[in-house]
């Protein structure tokens, strides 16, 4: 091929293009490929407030209570210990520590030594037997055992051995109120801490490991220590949430799912006779009010104000279909959002095809 240098255009152009091509192939080959498209996840952003109001109440409760209250398992014990005589408790001298010389007969359940001094405890007279008197009257079930003659040997049962003490307690010269108050207080403490019977050999203050004690604990059918939440009034029924909380709205995906469920169910009944005038079909909407169980709360209404006969005709058919297919199955997961689907609008297809 002869190159005509007076007209270098074509060969120059070809050369230049070739050079450019080669240069770009070489120079750009090291470019990094794009990262693969990652699978996207639907994400919804809520504030901490929304989260806490979403999670109010108890998940396992059955329904939203009209007036949600916190759960209360046990009525608080009424404080009976009002000093009826207006006694200033401070005046009462603190009792001495428990007398360690507890006779075997008595073998009172040992008291843990570092007890805060009970201000209401009356000062016991120096009568060893008497000091032991704060064997409080046992709880009613044990009181029943009092009539038993004290001579009966009952060394194993600690509780029973306390009974003779009760007899001796009776002719107490001490003022009755203090006596009673002291007894009640002691009884309370006893209950709380010494419920499980401990072997008499146990000295007070000793916290040695005792297998038999633990075994007795395990088989004990007495009430567990934990008393549960305490309050003024029993409230056994927990609330599923708040009646008027600011719960988060139905997420878009849940909204679509619910709309799809309703669409399928109504679709089964939605038949149209051929020949309907579909000019303004988009106006033929029907408003529905649901009950929580998916039934219709009231007769559905045509939602559009159009007086077009074709719109009215199609809306009538849609309304009839909604009525025929009621009640509707609404899965339980949508129940907490009842407020957001209670009022639903059904629209016809865009064209009858």
């Amino acid at each position, binding site marked *: 091929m002869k190159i005509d240098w007076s007209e270098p255009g074509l060969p120059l152009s070809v050369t230049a293009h070739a050079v450019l091509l080669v240069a770009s192939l070489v120079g750009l080959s090291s470019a990094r490929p794009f990262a693969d498209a990652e699978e996207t996840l639907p994400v919804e952003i809520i504030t901490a407030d929304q989260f806490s109001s979403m999670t109010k109440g108890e998940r396992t409760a059955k329904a939203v209570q009209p007036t949600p209250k916190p759960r209360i398992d046990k009525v608080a014990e009424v404080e009976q210990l009002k000093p009826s005589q207006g006694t200033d408790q401070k005046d009462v001298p603190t009792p001495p520590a428990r007398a360690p010389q507890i006779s075997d007969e008595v073998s009172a359940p040992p008291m843990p030594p570092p007890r805060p001094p009970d201000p209401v405890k009356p000062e016991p007279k120096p009568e060893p037997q008497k000091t032991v008197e704060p064997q409080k009257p046992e709880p009613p079930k044990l009181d029943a055992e009092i009539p038993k003659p004290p001579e009966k040997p009952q060394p194993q049962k600690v509780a029973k051995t306390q009974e003779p003490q009760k007899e001796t307690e009776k002719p107490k010269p001490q003022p009755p109120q203090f006596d009673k108050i002291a007894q009640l207080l002691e009884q309370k403490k006893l209950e709380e801490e010494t419920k499980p019977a401990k072997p008499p050999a146990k000295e007070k203050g000793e916290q040695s490991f005792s297998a038999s004690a633990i075994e007795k604990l395990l088989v004990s059918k007495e009430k567990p220590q934990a008393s549960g939440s305490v309050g003024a009034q029993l409230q056994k029924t927990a609330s599923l949430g708040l009646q008027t909380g600011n719960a988060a709205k139905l997420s878009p995906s849940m909204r679509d799912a619910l709309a799809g469920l309703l669409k399928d169910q109504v679709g089964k009944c939605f*038949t149209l*006779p*051929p*020949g309907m005038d579909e000019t303004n079909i988009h106006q033929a909407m029907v*408003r529905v009010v649901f009950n929580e169980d998916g039934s219709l709360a009231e007769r559905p209404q045509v939602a559009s104000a159009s007086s*077009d006969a074709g719109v009215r005709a199609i809306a009538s058919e849609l309304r009839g279909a909604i009525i025929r297919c009621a009640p509707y199955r609404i899965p339980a997961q949508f129940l907490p959002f009842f407020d957001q689907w209670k009022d639903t609008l*059904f*629209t016809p*297809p865009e064209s009858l095809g």
Partner: protein
Amino acid sequence: MTLSISRRSVALGLAATPLVGATARAELVVSLDRANFQPLPIAIPDLQGEGDLGARVAAVIANDLQRSGVFAPIDKRAFIDKAVSPDVMPQFDSWRAINAQALVTGRVQRDSARMHAEFRLWDVSSGEQATGQQYTTDANNWRRVAHLIADAIYSRITGAGGFFDSRVVYVDETGPKQARRKRLALMDQDGANVRYLTEGNELVVTPRFSPTSQEVTYMAFAPNGDASVRLLNIETGQREIVGNFPGMTFSPRFSPDGERVVMSLEQSGNANIYTMDLRSRATTRLTDTSAIDTSPSYSPDGTQIVFESDRGGAQQLYVMGANGGPAKRISFGQGHYSTPVWSPKGDYIAFTRQTANSFGIGVMKPDGSGERILTEGFHNEGPTWAPNGRYLMFFRDQGGAKIFMADVTGRVDVAVPTPSFGSDPAWSPLLA
């Protein structure tokens, strides 16, 4: 035949659909994406009335509604409640039990001169009345009352206008094929009340109704072979020849205002479109080509004319202004297009399309788009529109012509009963 009807539209009860204000802020919107088509199951028990009058009226209503393809009347033998008074609320449960979605109750009463009729249409699903009407008419017009009731029911359910209270003029053909006697005949759209308008001495074709008067225009061949457009007054029987044209005139139609007749005039081997004013008898030529332009039809607003022409080769459809001028071709499919008819609603043009081995009746939009063939077979021809623009009658020649009815969706195709063979049907406007 004079018909006097007074209709007292008393709303016998509440309308079924109280209109709530604009879409009051529903939280959730459910959009249906399709509907299943199924004729509406409707129960039409005998109307109350003397003798079997109520039963006859109910039968005409049921027949009308069934032929429309929109309704599926439930067999009377399945009814749990046999007799329902129009004055009480029906026991909807016994109608739901037979899967009725609509129920008609009513009464017909006749005294010496007049007939009174009333009906209620109930929506069984919601238990509400959908519509109700009262009618008073001549005592021997019980069929018309049935058609009026059927129209009211049809309109309420579909939102479209009714068409049952109308008549059809056609060419009745009797006798052997070589010697067919053709007479103009008039009947109710369901085939009842047949009446002959001509004697059969002349060959008659393509009758058409006037939209405003009791007149029919048609073409007849005189015994001497002259063919001309005629006018016939149905009530008086009076006939006349339209215009005094030097050549053969054919394919006549009225203008929407009833004042003019448009037709085709053949001259020297080609044919052009002319109009004639019926009062002044003035004629106007609209096309001027060497082709055969024929079968003109006005648009319902009277501003345009669609016609058939072979100016481009094969017969095709063209649209031009009602006063003539340039014509635009609108048909482009395979085959020959003929007999175009503009629907009374203006949204469709029906036509006959002929291909190598079949004839089809079809519709297209006035700009030529959306062409659909509704029925195909050997020798379907000559569509005519029902007053509501949703149904067509045409004739089908299967060894003898018979008239059939179809709808624009192509779902309906039913025979129209005629005593003998029949062709060239033309549908009247609504009678009331």
